[in-house]
């Protein structure tokens, strides 16, 4: 099982108990009075049978508060997701923090910020490198790239999943568009791996048919589901953090009820990717203060009140177009606030250029940052041994030293984290060894990973079965005029 990081102190709370209660009550008010649109007769019937009030003509479901609250209680506060290699199993929930790899549309040039469509080899190499990074515990859907040279858009999700399963044993998420979940479920089963399913709303307060059909397929396959709404503050949600917290909660709780109606006890991970709108351009305001505060409030409510595991996506995509100072501070501040406020998963490694690109070298640098964040929430041990009072007394005042003590030799390795890509040389040595910065050192680390890392391969029959499934997918989409 992957260890992740264990938060050992109370999370940071940005809301009072009374505010949490008020937000929850007003969320229930939105769900019962405004409702949520479900673009599927099958879903509408199921929700009606489960006790919701349904307007079949308008496709709107109105959720009675008691049904929402009992559905919340039916969600497990933690659950296991199994990999084809047990070392990569995940126990999601509680005080455990896992990191999810980020993604991007295309490959970013680490030096210039220019983007290009990655080849299949570049795609697979990026997955392989992520498999080697200790702090990446799982993958998002269509990771690492939205576009791969030679792969038609409609085949991207299923092909991308196949490549992740071939080049890594880490758990991954499925996706939902254009019936891809049909193929992704089959591919995961062929590989002997559980998937985390996907159900994403279209804010405000709506679920498209794809999302609903995806949920049915993933739940019926026995997989847990990652739910998300991704509203834009000031666009598809109120511009205020409080208002968009309520609208996002309403969207996600509608999904919680729906999924529990399909199968009671299904594991759910609730994602927060609510982002303010950049009012200069209408674009998303990536890695903004508003996103950070929104996630902190979200983590508190879903952890304390609902006891449903959370994921935060705010740190996945810096606004910066390059792997530079801006991208580092943008991602780190928001990931740290996520971790401190109790997120169970944080999307982090490798994304840049406002969701439009990814680079594995950046993922290597982000590995160090993620470990730093993870170890921060693990705090430090306070014990007789670590307080070292006897040692303090024996060393005494100047000229006493701690450097030549067994205690120092033993404990520095336990208490320190030594980043693998950061420069820690003295200035003269830095000059003498080529003035390498973090990017140069990450490139060296990448070469080392490519030369030495090993991934447990799929069997020949598993590979062949996956190829057959992809062929079936092609025929399916061709018949639909999408290929």
């Amino acid at each position: 099982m992957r260890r992740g990081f264990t938060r050992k102190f109370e999370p940071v709370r940005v809301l009072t108990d009374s505010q949490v209660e008020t937000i929850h009550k007003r969320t229930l008010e939105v769900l019962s009075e405004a409702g949520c649109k479900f673009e599927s007769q099958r879903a509408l019937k199921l929700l009606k049978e489960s006790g919701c009030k349904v307007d079949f003509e308008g496709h709107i479901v109105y959720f009675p508060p008691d049904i929402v609250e009992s559905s919340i209680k039916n969600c497990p506060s933690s659950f296991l997701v199994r990999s084809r290699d047990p070392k990569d199993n995940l126990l999601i929930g509680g005080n455990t923090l896992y990191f999810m790899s980020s993604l991007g549309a295309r490959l970013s040039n680490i030096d210039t910020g220019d983007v290009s469509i990655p080849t299949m080899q570049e795609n697979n190499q990026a997955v392989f490198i992520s498999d080697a990074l200790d702090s990446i515990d799982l993958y998002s859907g269509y990771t690492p790239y939205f576009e791969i040279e030679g792969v038609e858009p409609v085949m991207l999700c299923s092909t991308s999943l196949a490549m992740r399963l071939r080049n890594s044993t880490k758990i991954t998420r499925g996706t939902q568009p254009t019936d891809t979940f049909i193929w992704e479920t089959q591919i995961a089963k062929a590989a002997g791996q559980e998937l985390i399913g996907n159900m994403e709303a279209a804010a405000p307060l709506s679920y498209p048919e794809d999302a609903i059909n995806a949920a049915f397929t993933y739940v019926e396959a026995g997989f847990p589901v990652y739910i998300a709404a991704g509203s834009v503050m000031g666009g598809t949600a109120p511009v205020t953090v409080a208002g968009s917290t309520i609208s996002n909660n309403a969207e996600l709780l509608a999904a919680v009820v729906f999924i529990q109606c399909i199968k009671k006890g299904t594991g759910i991970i609730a994602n927060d990717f609510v982002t303010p709108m950049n009012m200069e351009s209408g674009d998303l305001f990536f890695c903004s203060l508003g996103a950070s505060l929104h996630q902190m409030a979200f983590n508190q409510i879903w952890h304390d009140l609902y006891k449903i595991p959370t994921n935060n996506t705010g740190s996945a995509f810096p606004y910066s177009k390059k792997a530079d100072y801006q991208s580092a501070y943008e991602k780190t501040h928001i990931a740290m606030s996520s971790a401190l406020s109790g997120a169970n998963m944080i999307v982090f490694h490798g994304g840049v250029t406002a969701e439009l690109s990814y680079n594995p070298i950046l993922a290597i640098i982000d590995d160090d940052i993620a470990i730093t964040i993870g170890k921060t929430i693990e705090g430090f041990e306070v014990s007789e041994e670590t307080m070292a009072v006897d040692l303090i007394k024996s060393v005494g005042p100047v000229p006493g030293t701690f450097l030549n003590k067994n205690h120092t030799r033993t404990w520095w390795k336990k208490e320190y984290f030594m980043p693998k890509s950061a420069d820690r040389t003295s200035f003269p040595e830095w000059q003498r060894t080529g003035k390498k910065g973090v990017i140069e050192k990450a490139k060296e680390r990448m070469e080392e990973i490519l030369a030495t890392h090993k991934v447990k391969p799929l069997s020949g029959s598993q590979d062949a079965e996956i190829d057959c499934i992809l062929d079936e997918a092609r025929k399916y989409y061709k018949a639909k005029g999408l290929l």
Partner: protein
Amino acid sequence: MSSLSDIHDAVAAGNYKDIVELVKKAIDEKATIDEIINKSLSPAMLEVGDKFGSGELYMPDMLLAAKAMKTAMDYIKPLLKGSEHVAEKGVLVIGTVKGDLHDIGKNLVVTMAEGQGFKVVDLGIDVDYSRFVEAIKEHKPDIVAFSGLLTTTLANVPAHIKAIEDAGLRKDVVIAVGGAPVTRHFADMYGIEIYAPDASSAAKEFVKVISKK
């Protein structure tokens, strides 16, 4: 005439609540429809657009100004007599592609295009292939625009274009595509003439197309 200047200021301030009364007042003071449009409404929108471009105003300011202008235009249009008409720059049919429910970007493009004088037929979200075809037959647009937020639903754009081709209508329209994940490469791959990364540049591209006709 002070009422014309009041109309201008109301649009600039996004005051859609009072704009109709101000237009009525201007008409009472014998202002012509042409004067109201060309000396008040349009100049105000152009100024707002320039200020948005220079960073002095922001998205909500622009949308409210456009709302005020649309409110005024909706009041004015039924008053036009006989041969009078509001000159339209062109006709745009726009919708979010099949499978995608997102519409912020599309709505921004609608606002910007109307601000530029286009008649816009907004088909809404999750628009089926056949609805675009029907809209082309009915409204005979100059430009057909597809909007999408999800990379994965943009996979439906080629199917939309195919439906237009199969109906024999491809040569009659210029196709535009936009949305956060769209790229110039994507547009080129499917023979799409206009690619715009944001609403503001979309409207400018539309104007360029019309001016070449």
